[in-house]
Each structure stands twice: as structure tokens, then as C-alpha cells.
């Protein structure tokens, strides 16, 4: 019906103008200040995340503590965002253009983010499992002197660990890794009739065709920076918060085992560099994206710093146990090296033990926060819809 279309857009235009008129009065300054403060905080927070030193293990990029900081910042930004959006002087703004389009899109993104949160929470269960296997390796290699028995014990756990990490990543790179794990199986062919060693992997919580990468890709739909006059209004924090949300989910998926992550590095979200707050996010996106590309070829369970350490140490210790079994003994120097690596692995396990559960809780908190904001926004929209006569 062209007539109504015309009317709708006509009325739409009027209300935009009305918005602008409202925005011109005294409150406008306050609003502008709030917006500025918001983007300032965003850029400060992400600059801090970007400047995380790689050499300090505790705060390294994509380490557990880094992720926790990221989520902390997300929660802070989110609270500020909600404040700007909901405590504004004119609550009816959210039902007027362009927000009448942007808010539902934002809510749609929120729902997708919730599913990502769940997938990641589930993925953390796998990480817990790796931790437990690594702890066995540590227990075996902590004993002195290391003999054939300890070496075998460590090797068995290492084999499980390495293959578990690879099984979880099956979707990411062809199943080449799984075969390897079987060939290491202690009993080789003869174990066929018996129960194979147990590898736990991410159990699918959602439908098989659910894909974390596609989900995040879908979150970037319609995500474009506000243009022209919109840029000075509430459209801009909605855009900013959306970018933050997409980035945080993307980073979580890159770090933690997740269902189907093919094409994760190909996801771009258009954050123009000229926006001050976006620079650090772009920087982080590039940095993590590079890492992912490097790993994608080899196949990895995730970029979580602790897991990468685990993988690296696992490979070294695997070589150690291999050579131990081949030679039957080792030099003192090798034993010392192995002990040092085992100690490093123990430290990694300790950090996981301390950090994984709180991280999981924090993801849950993010989940609940997103739900809460969504509910509040829906209620506000509902309220506005009731109190003001609808535009046609």
C-alpha cells in the first residue's frame, strides 16, 4: 500500500524533526555529556585491554584473568549504556526513529549473545576436563625420581589431553588429530575388543547445526555506524554497545571451545577507525584474528592463553615421555627440564582452578544482565506503546 507507506515515512520524518527539537533544549547538553563520557570510558577500558602485556602471564591477552577483565568491562559499559538509554529525559525516544528500528535489532543481537554465552559456558566444561587431565600429568611428573611408570602415566594422560583438545576442535580442522590419538592408544590394535579409552568432548547443548561463528556473523547484521544527525543522538550508544557485545562474544568464542567456529576470523564488524572508542577494539580484533588464523590451520581447541600453554607444554612433555620410553632413561638435565615444564603446567592448572569457575559465573552474570536489560527495554517499549498513540 503505497499510500500508507508514504504516510508512515512522512510521519516518521516529522517525529525525527520533533526529536531534534527536543534535543535542542537544555537537556541536550547533559545528554551530549553523557554520550561523550560513555565513549570515553569505552575507549579507556578497551585501551587497557589492548595494552595487556604479553609477557606477564597473569594478564596476557585471552588469559582467564584477561577474559574476566573483559567481562567486567562489558558489565560496566552495559550498565552505563542502560543508564543513558533508560534514564534519559524522554523515555518515548526509544520508540521513535531511528531507535524504533535500532532497539529491536539490538534486542535481537542480545538474544543471539545469550546463546553464545551458553555455548561458551558449556565449552568451559571441556576446559575443566583438560585441566583435570593436565593435573594427572603433573601428579605423575612431580614424583622423584621419574621412572618408567611415572613417564607412562604422564604419557597416558597427555595422550588423552591432547586428543581431547583436538576432538573438541574437530569441526575446526579436519579430524586429522583424532587419528593420532588413537594410534597412541596404549593397547594399540589389541584393545579393539575392550572399551576404548575415554575421551570426553563438548556435548552439544543445542541442535547439531548450531554454529557459534554463524551466530556471531548474524549478530553483525545491520550493524552500521550511525550517520549524519543520528550520530549525535542515542543511535550512537546503541551502536557502540552492539559493537562491544559482538566483540566480547567473538573473543569468548575464539578463546573457549565452542560448537562450530569455522569462519570465525572472517567476521568483520564495521567499526570505523575515526571513532575514538573503536580503535582499541579494532586493534584487539586484529590481534586476536591474527592469532586465530595462525591456529586455524593447525586446529586448536581455543585461544585461551592457559590452553595454549597447556598445549605447548603438553607437546614438550609428550616428547619427553616418548624419549624416556625409547631410551629407558634420561639425563639429569632432561629430567630437570621436564620438572620445570611440569611445574609450569602445574602453575597453569592452578590458574585454571582459581579462575575457571569464577569465569563461568561471570559469563552467567553477563547472561542475566543481558536478559534483564532486554526485559526492561521491552517493558519500556510496551509502556511507551500504551501511553502514546501509535503512529498509524
Amino acid at each position, binding site marked *: 500500500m503505497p499510500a500508507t507507506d508514504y504516510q508512515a515515512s512522512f510521519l516518521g520524518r516529522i517525529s525525527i524533526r520533533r526529536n531534534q527539537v527536543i534535543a535542542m533544549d537544555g537537556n541536550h547538553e547533559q545528554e551530549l555529556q553523557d554520550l561523550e563520557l560513555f565513549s570515553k570510558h569505552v575507549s579507556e577500558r578497551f585501551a587497557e585491554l589492548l595494552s595487556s602485556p604479553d609477557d606477564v602471564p597473569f594478564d596476557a591477552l585471552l588469559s582467564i584473568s584477561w577474559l574476566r577483565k573483559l567481562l567486567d568491562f562489558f558489565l560496566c559499559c552495559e550498565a552505563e549504556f542502560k543508564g543513558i538509554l533508560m534514564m534519559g529525559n524522554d523515555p518515548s525516544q526509544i520508540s521513535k526513529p531511528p531507535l524504533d528500528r535500532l532497539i529491536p535489532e539490538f534486542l535481537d543481537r542480545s538474544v543471539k549473545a545469550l546463546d553464545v554465552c551458553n555455548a561458551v559456558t*558449556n565449552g568451559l566444561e571441556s576446559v575443566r576436563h583438560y585441566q583435570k587431565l593436565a593435573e594427572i600429568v603433573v601428579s605423575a611428573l612431580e614424583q622423584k625420581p621419574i621412572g618408567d611408570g611415572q613417564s607412562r602415566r604422564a604419557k597416558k594422560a597427555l595422550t588423552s589431553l591432547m586428543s581431547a583438545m583436538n576432538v573438541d576442535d574437530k569441526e575446526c580442522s579436519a579430524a586429522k588429530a583424532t587419528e593420532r590419538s588413537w594410534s597412541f592408544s596404549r593397547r594399540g590394535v589389541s584393545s579393539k575388543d575392550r572399551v576404548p579409552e575415554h575421551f570426553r568432548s563438548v556435548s552439544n547443548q543445542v541442535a547439531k547445526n548450531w554454529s557459534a561463528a554463524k551466530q556471531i556473523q548474524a549478530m553483525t547484521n545491520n550493524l552500521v555506524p550511525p550517520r549524519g544527525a543520528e550520530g549525535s543522538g542515542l543511535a550512537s550508544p546503541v551502536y557502540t554497545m552492539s559493537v562491544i557485545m559482538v566483540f566480547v562474544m567473538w573473543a569468548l568464542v575464539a578463546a573457549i571451545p565452542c560448537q562450530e567456529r569455522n569462519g570465525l576470523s572472517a567476521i568483520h564488524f564495521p567499526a570505523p577507525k575515526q571513532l575514538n572508542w573503536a580503535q582499541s577494539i579494532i586493534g584487539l580484533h586484529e590481534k586476536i584474528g591474527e592469532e586465530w588464523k595462525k591456529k586455524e590451520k593447525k586446529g586448536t581447541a581455543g585461544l585461551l592463553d592457559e590452553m595454549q600453554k597447556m598445549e605447548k607444554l603438553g607437546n614438550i612433555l609428550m616428547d619427553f615421555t616418548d624419549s624416556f620410553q625409547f631410551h629407558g632413561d634420561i639425563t639429569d638435565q632432561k629430567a630437570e627440564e621436564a620438572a620445570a615444564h611440569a611445574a609450569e603446567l602445574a602453575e597453569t592448572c592452578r590458574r585454571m582452578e582459581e579462575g575457571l569457575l569464577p569465569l563461568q559465573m561471570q559469563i552467567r552474570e553477563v547472561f542475566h544482565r543481558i536478559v534483564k536489560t532486554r526485559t526492561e527495554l521491552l517493558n519500556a517499549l510496551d509502556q511507551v506503546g500504551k501511553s502514546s498513540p501509535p503512529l498509524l
Partner: protein
Amino acid sequence: MDECQSAIPAHDGDLHVVAAAHHIVKALGTTKNLSNDLRKILIDLDAHLSLITSNIDSKGGKGFVEVEERLKRVERKIVIWESDRIMIWDSGPKEASDYLEAVDEVQTLIDSLRGLSMNENQKQKQLLHRAASLLQMAMSRLEEELIHMLVKHKQQSEPTYMPSPSSQRNVVYNESVVSLDNESAKEASSKNSCSDECGEYIVDLVPEHVIPDIKSIAKVMFASDYGQEFCEAFIGVRKEALEQHFDILENGKLSIEDVLKMEWCSLSTEMNKWTWSMKIIFRVYLMSEKRLCDEVLGEFGSVNSFCFLEIAKTTILCLLNFGEAIAMGPQEPEKLLRLLDMYETLADLVIDIDALFSEDGGSFVRLEFHKLLEGLADSVKAAFNAFGVAVSSNGSLYPFPGGGVHPLSKYVMNYISMFPEYCSTLNLLLEDQHSDVASLVSEPQCGPTASLSTSCPMACHLRSITSSLESNLHKKSKLYKDEALQHIFLMNNLHYMVQKVKGSELRPFFGDEWIRKHNAKFQQHEMNYERVTWSSVVLLLKDDNPGSSSLSKSAFKEKCKGFSVAFEEVYKNQTSWCIPDPQLREDLRISTSLKVVHAYRTFLGRNPAHVDDKCIKHTVEDVEKLLLDLFEGSPRSLRNSRRMMKT
């Protein structure tokens, strides 16, 4: 071969090389598909290496000879199984206990070797390594035995005495407020009734006779510091088993996005499945799993709760997420009953959940479910309010044909007649909104005669809903141009409401006072109908001049004609009207008849002179009979009926 023979080691330091080689040879010997030649070579090599070992033994190791002898004996017992593809515990209890004894012995040897001061004694070190190797071999074997045992004895079937989900999954309540007829509302009404059927059903997830075997393995593995391996293996199998049980319950693996987009019909099914699965998973499987963990691992400190949590977590997260998705979805009125089911189920289970996850590690689970319970409570309230709004705002453009019972009345009354089953829950949840509503519907119920049931929050809300329904019906009645039909419509609907209240569990919540009042209301409409329709008709027959004994012929004729026209008009109209309740229809006909037939008979009786066929279109008997055609809902014109009567 030759090289081997020449390489007889000269000192102890090389012994473990030989031992390692020996192990490798033995391990190779277990390979299944060896050629006969190769097998022979390996056997030879095995014998040779044994010889070397014993040679050195006789030379070295003064005080360790006995230890070494013991080690060798036990080594044979353990190594022999390495080449055997039959599981030890499958072979028999004797084999199993022998093996455990052997492992104990290895552990004892290790302990005693460690107990000796380690003064760089090569022999001691070498024996210790050898024993540790042996221990690793045994532990690895025990882990396999454990997994085999757990997998083999995993109870595959569902407990048979549990009601199956299909028997309780009731008909989907898939209609919206406007388009619901009596039947589907009734079908939908059967509440999930399994709360009584499944109390606590702890089952043997692993047959009871296997538990001691598992425990014996646990004991030995924990004693040898291989508890971690035991736990990982145990968790792995049990977790998978739980997930399989969960899959059997047919829970669709849905993302939140899926749930929010779902059609009501499938969503209702999923909500039912969730309610069902929650009960089964917590009451049956997790309770039983907890018992199994406690039985097997109870004596090893807090590992039992750790293992239990690891086993349960993913399944629990799945259930939790569906609940969250429902709690955040839009709360349409039709969801109310399913939401109540979900809420009641969880409210019921919360105590169990708290008990199952009482340890620190489980606080996360406890917290999440308490949050979900709050969320569901809010959802119930929201859906309840949405229901109220839907009842009062349901609008129509056209009058409901025939003035019968409107589908909205049926829907609302049938729907609310389910509420008493959820009485205590609704009272709890509606408590905080109680005061507003109570003031709205503070009818005499809240007076001194009010009983507890009529003044509870749910009762007040119920009456507030029916009063919204009444006002809506009044609005709808205004759509009729004919005032008489307005009254018929209101009479029908009010009567229907009263009947529904009287004939259901709703009665105590509405109280006799309400029933009395509403009886009076529909009777008032009945009277109004009679007045509006028949007063003018009867008035036509009225004696203008009470003094004189009879009318003139022309006046009589005119009155007669007037009456017939008016009567036929009413007949034509009101045969298409509808009073679905036979008793009500009968009552109305009788009282109409009394009024109209009586007036007609009197009129004719007063003018006996003029009574002849030509003048009188309808006899008294005709009128009496014709009145029976009213309110049947099938329009008739008088010509037809007259012809029918003549034939």
C-alpha cells in the same frame, strides 16, 4: 638376535634397560595379528631377556633379593593379563581378588622400598622404578576394567514403573483467546498430574552387585594415588549415561533463539517435556546418581560431590537454559497453565536441588535454579495479568449471531476452572497484587460471612477476571440493535458463568453470595427480555374500555390482526435466537407462555361472538405451540410453520 646375546650387561645400571626392553617385548607379544615367525622370535627374545635379568639378579642386590623375588612373583600375576583380551572381572571373582591382591602387594613393595633410606642405591632405585612401572600397568588396567564394568552394567532401560512422558503429555492448548470452543478447553485442562505419581524414585543406575567391585577398584586406585584417573573415568562414563537418559526424554536441543521464535503449539509440547524431564532427571536420575557417587566415593573425602557435579552439570545447564528461555519470552495468556506447571515443578524440586548440591561447588547450580524460580514466578504473574487484559480487551466488530454463549465466556470459564488446581501457587504469587484487586471486587464476600476460600488472593483475582468478562460482555451486547436480543445474550452468558461456577471447583472461591447475585442478574435480563419483547404485544390485546363486555367486530378484528403481525414478527426474529441451555430455554418459554398465552386466551374469551376462523389467524393452541419454536437457533417464517402444523 646375535647382538642381543652379546650385549649381556655388566652392571646394575643397565638393568632397567633390559627390564624396559623386556616390557616392550612382552607388550609386542600381545599384538594380535602377528605372523607366526615373528611371534616365535618375540617368545625367544622374551626368554632371553628373562635370563639376563635373572643373571644380574644373582650377581647384585644383596638385601633386595627377597623384595625382588616378591616383585617378580607379583609381576607375573599382573603381566599375564596384559596379553589376555578377556577382562579380569569378567573372568571371575577369584581372578579379580587375586589381581587386587597383586596390586596391593606392588603398593606394599613400593612403600617399603620408599621407606628405606635412599642412599643412592642403584638396586633400590631400579627396583622402585620397576615396581612403579608395574603399578602403572596395573592402574591402567584397572581403569580399563572400571570403564568396561560401568559401560557394561549401565542400566539401559528406563525404570519401568515410571509413567511414560506420552501418557502424561496432554493435549496442547493451542488456541488463542477468541477461537476456543468448549471441547479443546476441556481437553487442555487435564493438568500434569505426575507430581503425585513420581515421588522419589531412586534406582540402581548400576546393578547392586557390581558396586562392591567398583568400590574395590576405587579403593586400590585411590590408595595408589590414582584417584584422579578413577574420577575422570568414572565421570566420563556416568556423564554420558546421564546424557543418554536425557536424550531419551526427547528434549529438543533448542537455543534460546529457537525457543523465542517457536510456535505456541510446539512450545507447549516443549514446556510439558521440560516439566516432565525436570522431575525425572532430578528425582530419579540425579538422586540415584548422587547415591551412586556417595556409595562408590563416599570414603575418599569430597571427591564424591565433585564427581557428581561434573557428571550432572551439562545436563542441568540444558534444563536451566530452556527454563530461562521460557522465563524471558513474551508471556501470552495461553502460556499461563504451562508456566504454572513449570513453576510448581521447580518449586517442588528446589529443596531437592539444594540438598543435591549442598556443597560449595554446587552453589552455582543452587543459585541459578533459585533465580529461575523467581523468573518463572514473574512469568506466571505476567501471564496472569496478560490473561486479565485479554479478557477485558477482547473486542468484536459484529454481534455474536443468535445471542448464545460467546466463545470468550466459554474460554474464560473453562480456563479459570483449571485454576483451583493451582490454588496454593496462585495465592502465593498473586499475594502482592492482592490488595489492588481485592478492593476492586470487594463484594459482600469479604464481609462477615466470607470464608477463607472466597477471600484468598486467587478468589479475588478470579472474581476480578469474571467481572472483566461481564463488562466485556456488556460491551459486546451493545452491538445488537435489538434490545431484547441484548438481554438474551447477557442472560445466556451470565447463566453460563453461574453454571460453570456452580458445577466446578470454582464454587468455593466465588461463594454462594456471588452465585445468588449473578442468578439475580441473569433473571433480571430474562425479565427485561420479556418486558421488551412481549409487553407491547400483550398491550395490543388490552381492553381499551374495561367497562363494556365485548368489542365491536371491527375493533376486535383490528386487535387480532395487530397481534398476529406483532407475534409473527417476534416469531420470525426470535426463532433464530439461541438459548443453548435447555432448562433456561424451557423456563423462559413457560414464563413467556404464561404471559402471552394467558393474555391471548383472556382476550379471545372476552369476545366469544367474534371468534371464527377468518378473523383469528392463530388459535391459542397455535400460539402455545409456536412459542416452542423460539430460541432454537433456526430461523423460521410463520408460513412454513403454519403449513407444518396443518399437515
